Each structure stands twice: as C-alpha cells, then as structure tokens.
C-alpha cells in the first residue's frame, strides 16, 4: 500500500490514463518486478547483445533494426541476426539474447524460424549463461495469440536461461508495445553502463602479439558451397573451430593439402611393386611410402627441373615440360623399385596454399572462416582440378585439420573513425567480410563502402544476406555491385568505380583508405588503372601528379592490396 502523497499522485496518474497507458504501466511494472520473480541474474555494464528475429512479413525484422539503432545510442552494441541464418551451435555461447518473433499459420513460428524453434524443443542441452527476453508479435484475431513467442520464452526458461524481462505480446498495432519492451530492455542493460569495456570485446588489434607460423589444429564445423544451383562456380565457405587461434582481420589461413587417394594409388601401381608401407627417409624424416605420397610430396604440376632430373635418372628423353607424376610414370615408366624410390627423393614437398580469412576475431571468436573458389582447368583436353581448393571443398564437417596463420601487416584496418573503400570481386570479398564484421563488433564509426562483383546476381552473390543485414543496420554505408553476365555487355567493378568517380574521389580526398583484394589478372591491374584515372580526372591532376598522389597513398598505407 502506498502512503500519501504518493498514493494521490498514483491515483491521479491512473484517473486520466487511457487503456493503452494502463496496459503500458502494467507491462512496465511487470518488467520492473520480473527479474526477482523469475530469478534473473542482475544485469549491468552490458555492451554486447544479440537480437534475433523470426519474421514472415518483415515486422519483426524492422523492430530488430529499431532496437539495434536505439541500443547503439546508449552505447550497447546489438548484433542483428535473422533466425533463418542463425548458427544453432552459437546458442550456448550467447549471454544476452533477445528474440523478436511473430506467430504464423495456426500458432506456428514463421517458416524462416522453424529450424531454430525445433532445435530449441528437440535438443536436451543447457543454456545456463543465457539472459534473454522475448517480444512476441501476433494478432488477437487468432486463437493461438503469440504462441510461437510464448513457446520460445518458456523453452529458454526450461533450458536454464534467465529472463531479463517478461515476454511482451503485441497485437497487429504493435508499435507502442514494442517500443515499451525496447525501453524496458535498454533500461536493464544500461544500468551501470559506465563500467569499462571488458577486454576481448573490443581489444585493440595492436595489442595482440604476432604468432609467426605457429601451427594450429582445428575442426571443420561448416563447409558450404555459397553458389546456388545453376552457377558456373563453386565457392566454399569453410568454418574451422580452433579455440587458441590468434589472428587479425587481413591475415590469411595457410594449409598443406593432401594428395588425392586415387592419384597415390595410380602412382603405386606404376612403382614396379614397391610396398606402400615400406619406410624411407625424406629430408631427414622417415615415412612410409604411402604417407609420403599422400601427405608430403608434390605430385601435381611438376616443375621442369624435376622433370629434367627424372629424365636423367631414367635415361629417357622427355620433351614435355608440364606433367603430373602419374602421367609421367605412365608415359616413361621406372626401371624398377629402386629407381622409383630414388625418384621419390627428387620430388619437392607439397607447397602450402593461402586463403585470406573472412572471419573477424571480435565477431567470430575461436574460429577462422575462409572462402575457397573451386579451381578447375583443362590440360590438353583433360579437365583437372586444383589440388588444395578441391581438397578443402571436399572436407566433411568434423574433420580435424592443421593450419597456420599467415600475417599480412600491410593489410590492416585503419583507425576506427577512418572511412574505408573495399574493392573485392569474387573471393576478394574475404577480408572485407572480416573487416565489416570487426567494425560492426567494435562499433567503429568510420564509413564503409564495398565494391563487389561476380557473374550472376541470383546465384553468385557471396555473403548476400550478411551484407544485407550490415547495409540495413548502417554498418555498410554503401555497396556497389557488378554482375558481369546479367546483361548483354560485361560489367565489372572498375566500371562501377568509374560511374561513382566523383563520390569515390571525395572519399579518397577525405582520407579514406582503399583496399583491393582478389585475382591479380586481369582484375587488380584494371582496378588500379581506373583508380589512377579517377585521381587524375576528378582531382584535376596531370598524369604525373596523379601517379605521385597514388604512390603517396601507398606509402602512407592508404592503398593496400592482397591479390593472387
């Protein structure tokens, strides 16, 4: 019971309150008392939350974006994810997890959230760390009002999560209820928001020490071909979990591929009967011949010196300069086992391959992601496959792999408030997904402009949904796309750059850093020429002055490239 004068104030307040007001007050008080009632952990100093939405017609999505925008203002970084995209294995790692979901069908979750919804209900896992709240969208004209939201709210509770605020159910006119829910949540999260940022969350890149070529062991947790059916391409997005891995955006992932079993068998069949498990030494280490061929020796695309040495060894005259080992042995067989063994000694080890990482330490902690284009080519009429890209593309989830981190000090994000222009067609997108994820996770204020290109919009738009989310939440300021084969005339990134020449030059003149990543020929040369042309014409410079200006940019680290 309230004492005077509080009581009168309270009653006055109620006297001229509309039904909506009363509903709000009710909800607000419920919100205030909720944690106690549901034993929620005390909240405070929160800087990172995940806000996930499940939507059919877009309302929940819009609200999630509103939330993120308003959270930013109070210094809280909210990662917006579509439940359709949400990786279920992340759930146990979540701490603050907010869900906005509508109800569809007859009390069901939206199609896009079914996977998530079923996962919650099927699996018997625990979510003790989870602090959550649910905003349920619905329509009171349906018998099962906001059912999907309610189910999720209860299921989180069952799995050990604790509510930071009561679930709020919204009718078709959801605006007021929704913004009240957002207020309640932001209130709770920003209590004691003054506390310092906990390390790790936004630990400045510089503080991390270089790890050189330290070798890591990781597990493939996902391997997806990002190109849709009907594409001419196959581009694998590979996620590898390795808790202890240390890297920075811009670094590359290095790995030594294994030779295909079929090739190894073919070689052994041409070895004059050598036993695969016979042990021999190669560069002062001993291996069985089988392992040596499978894991150590380069047997494809032999370099000319090797072929020469083989000719001398076998005393044959060999004119061809390009050979894979199986074809070489086929065409010019060894005399006997001993000759075969000494031939092995002449081969080079398999060279490691590099793949620029597309993940960010701040956003994808404990994981590295890469994007690998399937390489296939024809050698005198026969289609051959690139060794490493096909080895990686075929890696099943759960495989253990050894890899190393290849630092790239010349390809680093600038200060958070600097603008960046990213030019990355095809797999060149890799470091820029990393940059955007990093800048998103660390709330860097600088503007971000991406140029991306591929063959077809419908099948080849790498990371489309992630880029869309970053675009909607304002992390990606501008995106310019060039799909070369969607119209009669070929359009590439450099054409888009030229179309935006004025604005591009303004960014550059304003101190923006320009990054270029992807295939060297012909892409990177064309792009550099276009950049020069833009500096010259829009900067009203003589050709010489333009070249100097561009050189100056390179010297100051304002133009960096990672091309291959």
């Amino acid at each position, binding site marked *: 019971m309230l004492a005077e004068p509080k009581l009168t104030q309270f009653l006055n307040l109620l006297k001229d309150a509309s039904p909506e007001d009363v509903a709000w007050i009710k909800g607000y008080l419920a919100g205030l008392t909720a944690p106690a009632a549901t034993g929620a952990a005390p909240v405070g100093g929160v800087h990172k939350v995940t806000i996930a939405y499940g939507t059919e017609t*877009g309302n929940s999505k*819009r609200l999630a974006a509103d939330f993120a925008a308003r959270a930013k203002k109070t210094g809280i970084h909210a990662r917006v994810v579509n439940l*359709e*995209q949400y990786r279920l294995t992340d759930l146990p790692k979540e701490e603050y997890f907010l869900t906005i979901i509508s109800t569809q*069908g*007859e009390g069901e979750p939206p*199609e*896009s959230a079914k*996977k998530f919804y079923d996962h919650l209900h099927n699996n018997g896992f625990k979510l003790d760390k989870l602090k959550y709240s649910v905003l349920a969208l619905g329509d009171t*004209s*349906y*018998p*099962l009002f906001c059912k999907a939201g309610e189910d999720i709210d209860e299921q989180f509770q069952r799995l050990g999560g604790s509510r930071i605020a009561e679930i709020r159910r919204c009718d*078709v*006119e959801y605006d007021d209820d929704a913004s009240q829910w957002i207020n309640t949540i932001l209130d709770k999260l920003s209590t004691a928001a003054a506390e310092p940022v906990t390390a790790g969350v936004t630990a400045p890149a510089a503080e991390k020490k270089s790890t050189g070529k330290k070798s890591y062991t990781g597990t493939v947790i996902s391997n*997806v*071909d*990002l*190109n*849709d*059916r009907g594409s001419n391409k196959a581009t694998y*997005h590979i996620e590898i979990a390795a808790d202890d891995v240390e890297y920075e955006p811009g670094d590359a992932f290095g790995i030594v591929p294994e030779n295909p079993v079929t090739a190894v068998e073919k070689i052994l069949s041409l070895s004059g009967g050598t036993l695969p498990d016979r042990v021999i030494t190669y560069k002062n280490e001993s291996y069985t011949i089988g392992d040596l061929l499978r894991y150590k020796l380069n047997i494809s695309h032999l370099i000319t010196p090797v072929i020469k040495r083989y000719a001398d060894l076998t005393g044959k005259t060999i004119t061809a300069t390009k050979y894979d080992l199986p074809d070489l042995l086929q065409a010019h067989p060894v005399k006997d086992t001993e000759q075969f063994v000494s031939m092995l000694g002449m081969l080079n080890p398999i060279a490691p391959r590099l793949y620029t990482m597309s993940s960010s330490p701040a956003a994808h902690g404990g994981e590295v992601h890469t994007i690998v284009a399937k390489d296939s080519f024809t050698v005198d009429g026969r289609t051959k496959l690139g060794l490493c890209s096909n080895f990686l593309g075929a890696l099943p989830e759960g495989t253990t792999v050894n890899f190393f981190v290849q630092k790239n000090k010349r390809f680093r994000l600038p200060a958070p408030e600097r603008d960046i222009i990213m030019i990355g067609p095809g797999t060149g997108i890799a470091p820029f997904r990393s940059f955007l994820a990093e800048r998103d996770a660390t709330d860097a204020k600088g503007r971000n402009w991406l140029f991306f290109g591929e063959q077809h*919009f*419908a*099948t080849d*738009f*790498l*990371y*489309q*949904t*992630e*880029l*869309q989310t970053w*675009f909607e939440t304002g992390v990606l300021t501008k*995106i*310019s*796309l060039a799909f070369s084969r*969607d119209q009669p005339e070929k359009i590439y990134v450099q054409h888009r750059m030229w179309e935006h020449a004025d604005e591009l030059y303004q960014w550059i003149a304003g101190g923006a850093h320009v990054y270029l990543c992807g295939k060297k020929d012909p892409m990177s040369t064309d792009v550099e020429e276009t950049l020069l042309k833009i500096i010259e014409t829009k900067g009203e410079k003589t050709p010489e002055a333009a070249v100097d200006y561009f050189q100056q940019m390179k010297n100051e680290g304002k133009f960096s490239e990672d091309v291959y």
Partner: protein
Amino acid sequence: MEDNKHLSGIEKIKTSSDHLRGEITESLKDEITGAIREGDQALIKFHGMYQQDNRDRREERAAKKLDRLYSFMIRLRLPGGLISAPQWIAMHHIAGEKSTGVIKITTRQTVQLHGIVKSSIKPTIASFNAAMLDSIATCGDINRNITCTAHPGQSPLHAEIFGYADAISTMLMPKTKAYYEIWLDQEKLVDKKEEADPLYQDRYLPRKFKIGIVIPPNNDIDVLTNDLGLIAITENNELTGFNVAIGGGMSTTHGNAATYARLGTVIGFVPKGDDIMKVIYEIVTVQRDYGNRSDRKLARLKYTVDKVGADWYKTEVEKRSGITIAPAKPYSFTGRHDNYGWAKNHEGKWYYTAYVASGRITDDEDQAIKSALFEVAETGLASFRFSGNQNVIVSDVAEKDKASITAILDKYNVTGYTQSASPLRKNALACVALPTCPLALAEGQRYMPVLLSKIEPLLARYGLEKEPIIMRMTGCPNGCARPGAAEISLVGTAPGRYNLHLGGDRAGTRLNTIYREHLDEQEILGTLDKLFAGYKVDREAAETFGDYALRKHVATV
C-alpha cells in the same frame, strides 16, 4: 466510421503513395536485393504485379547465405478474357524470354506470368504495351478483371455483354498515370489535377472488388462468388437488363471465426444502358465509404452488406444513383461446365474449347498445347478466349478454316487429350499455391492432377466415372479456385493436409459445408471411397453427388 478508427497499415500506404507511385522507382534501383521495398510491395499490386519468391528454394539458399529467390508475377487485364492472335504471339514470346515460360490461365479468365526478375519487369511491361496489353488494376484494392460467360452457346448476346465488360472496366479504372510513368517512362504529370479521382479518391477501396457477368443458364463464371454479380436477363433473345447480386466471396481464415464464405444476394433488376452503369458505380462508392478499413480480413463487400443489411445497401444505392431497383426477374442456372470440343455460334463461326489442366499452358506429356496455340495464332485464322474454368477457347474460326485449325490441334494432341480426359478432371479447378504463392499452406495445381488419378479409379469402382462432379482444391482457405461453391472441395491446412468440404450444388447456387478436417492423402481417398459407395446405392434418381452429400451427410454434421 466506428470500426475505421485505427486504419490498417495498407490504408496509410495507399493515401501517402502519391496515387500509387510510392518509392517504386527507387525500389527498382536497390542493387543489393531482388525484392522491392515493403510499402511498394502493396502498391505494385495495383499495377498488376506481385512480389513472390520460390519457396522450394528458401532453406537451401538460406544455408548458402543467399537471399530468397525473388521474382514477380504479372497478371494481365483482359475484360471478358478475350485476346487476339497477334497479342497471343507477343505473349508467347514474352513468356519465353522473361518468365518461367508457362502461361497460366486464371480462374478469372486472364493470364499470369511468373518468375519475372526485378530487372525484367519494365522490359516485360513495355513489350506487353507494344501489343496493346496492360496489367493495370488486376490486383490491389480496386475493381479487378471483369469475368463474362465465355460459352459460345450464348453468343447471340456476347457482343453486347463483352461491350458491358469493357465499359465497366473502363468506368472503374483508376485515374492515376503512375503505371505509365513508372513502367513506361512516360513524362511526369505536371498538372496533378488530371488524375483527380472522384471514385477512388486517394484511398481506393477497402479491399479487392470483383465483378462478373453471367448469361444464364450456364453459370460458368460462378457469378454469385463475386462482390458484384450481374445476371443477364433476356426477353425473346434481347438483352433487357441485369439482376444485380451483391456480397459474394469465398475467402475464410483458419481459426478466425469472424470470416466466412458467402454467395451474392440478388437485390433486384436494373435495365441495361445508363441505369445499370450508374447503379454499378454507386454500389462501388457505398463499399468505398462503408467498407471496413481497419481489419482487412473483414473488408470485402460481403461483410459490409451483412453489417448494414442488403436492403439498406440497396436503398443507399438508389439514393445515390437516383434509380429505383425493380424486383428481380426470374432466371435459372443449369450448370457451370465448359462444353468441350467444337461448337458453332449463331453466325456460323466455330469455337474449340480445349481442356487445360489447372490452366497451365505448357508442353507436357499429355499435350503440347503451348506449341499448338502458338501455331494457331500464327495462322491468324482464330482469336482466343479464356473461360472461368481455366480453359482456353480457340474462337471465331470460319467454316473454311476449321479443318486446318483442327489439324494443328490434332498434331499436338490437344483434341486427343480434351476427348480422353475424364469428366471429373475436366470439371476440376485447382489454384496455383506452391511454390510461388506466399500464402499457400499446402499444394494446389501441382498436386491436383496426381490426386485425380487416384480418385478416378474409385469412381470407376462404382461405375460413376461418367459423373461430372465438380471438385476443387486450394492450398489455403483464401479460395482462389472457388472451393466453397464445389460439390467436393479440398482446402489446404498444412503440407499434405486438407479440409474436406461437401454439398455444394452443380450450378453454383449453394455453398458446401466442412465434413472432415486436416486429412492426409490416405484419409482423403478412404473417405471418398466410402462416400462414393454410399452414393452408388442410396442416390435418388439423377441426384447429383453434391445434393446427395448434403442430404445424407453434411446436413447432419
């Protein structure tokens, strides 16, 4: 009005759209998505388009971090469902170049093309425009395509009736020039007064509005399922005027008891000429002013009529039009079938009605009807007409050309298939549903043919294979294949599951009733088998299955 205190979101979009322009032009330029902006998705409907995505591909693309595979469906405006040979040729090519290639005849006598990507919309509309075809107001909260009895048997009246379809369509067209500005890059209007719209104002109608004109005794267009149905009345083969029926509609929503299917109420007779035009106009204005604009599920004319009462509605229309609506004249319906094969009209012209399964014009193992109709069009010896049963009628063929046209239809097995298909099949309707329809809960046109092949043997088992039972299927309760007015209907509730309704009559003057809920295929076949067995023994002389089912089953549910 009372229930218009909180206008629905769409209402706000309409009034603030600058006469259906919205941000469509900007939307088309958004590179990052194949979709258009939220608000514009409601507006393009008024221009005859729907944004859709291939639902079969959603999950896999999501895993690939690719957005949904968005494309657009375009629905043509064809009052009375008439289309010339040159127009057919144009449509054939456009379908091939810009869409999935399938030409889909709808239950309202027009065609839809699916799978048009955002960047192809303008080129598509431009090509249609060149062939003097448009898609204005074929969707949206506005008067839709007007349907008309297509049956050549009624043709003494056809010229006049088609004239009305055209005149009404023109009278109820929106005045905005947005379609021409946005899609055909025509000059922006300087003087906005040119598009002042006394009928639709800036808010348009509360909901879609549908008009159908029928020439008894064949109710092939299901006139009573329209918001406004016109029943042609004749005296010694002269059209005198129309009986007017208001408040028809099929749609319901699962679990929403406030929604229901309804057949039109005949409010009286109005003479042809200016009188009927005035009355039609005011029927629309009353719905504009009294329809529910806060809850779209209750916004169709049928709910307005039940809210204000049919008599009040009639009086209000009389007041506004200054015309007294006379008592209805007698008329009767005998059926809703298309009469397949060749038929001659009063002028001696020939008409071939071909059966098109679910209205999908494409070459398949049954018949190469797409090639056939294209070849017919190229001869220039025929025009085309669509029926409300999703079929096509090769029309206006002169006696001397009949043989050559028949030869073409034979060559592609059109005649063969039309003859061999069972009566059940030829009277069946199924809606589009998956994969394009965003509202589908279950399959429609993709599944109906399969299911029919399993039902035909059941009928045969009881020697009922000749019965022209009217069976319809929809993927959800919106009722696009008019299931409420069928003898047997299956209404999707979830993947692979349907509610079974029974007891509609053959002429389309009685709604059916729900009989069993949420059945899977086995349960559907089992239930029908029992019903057919009962029908075989208990049926009264010449009793239709619908009447039988009503008498023995649903009347007692």
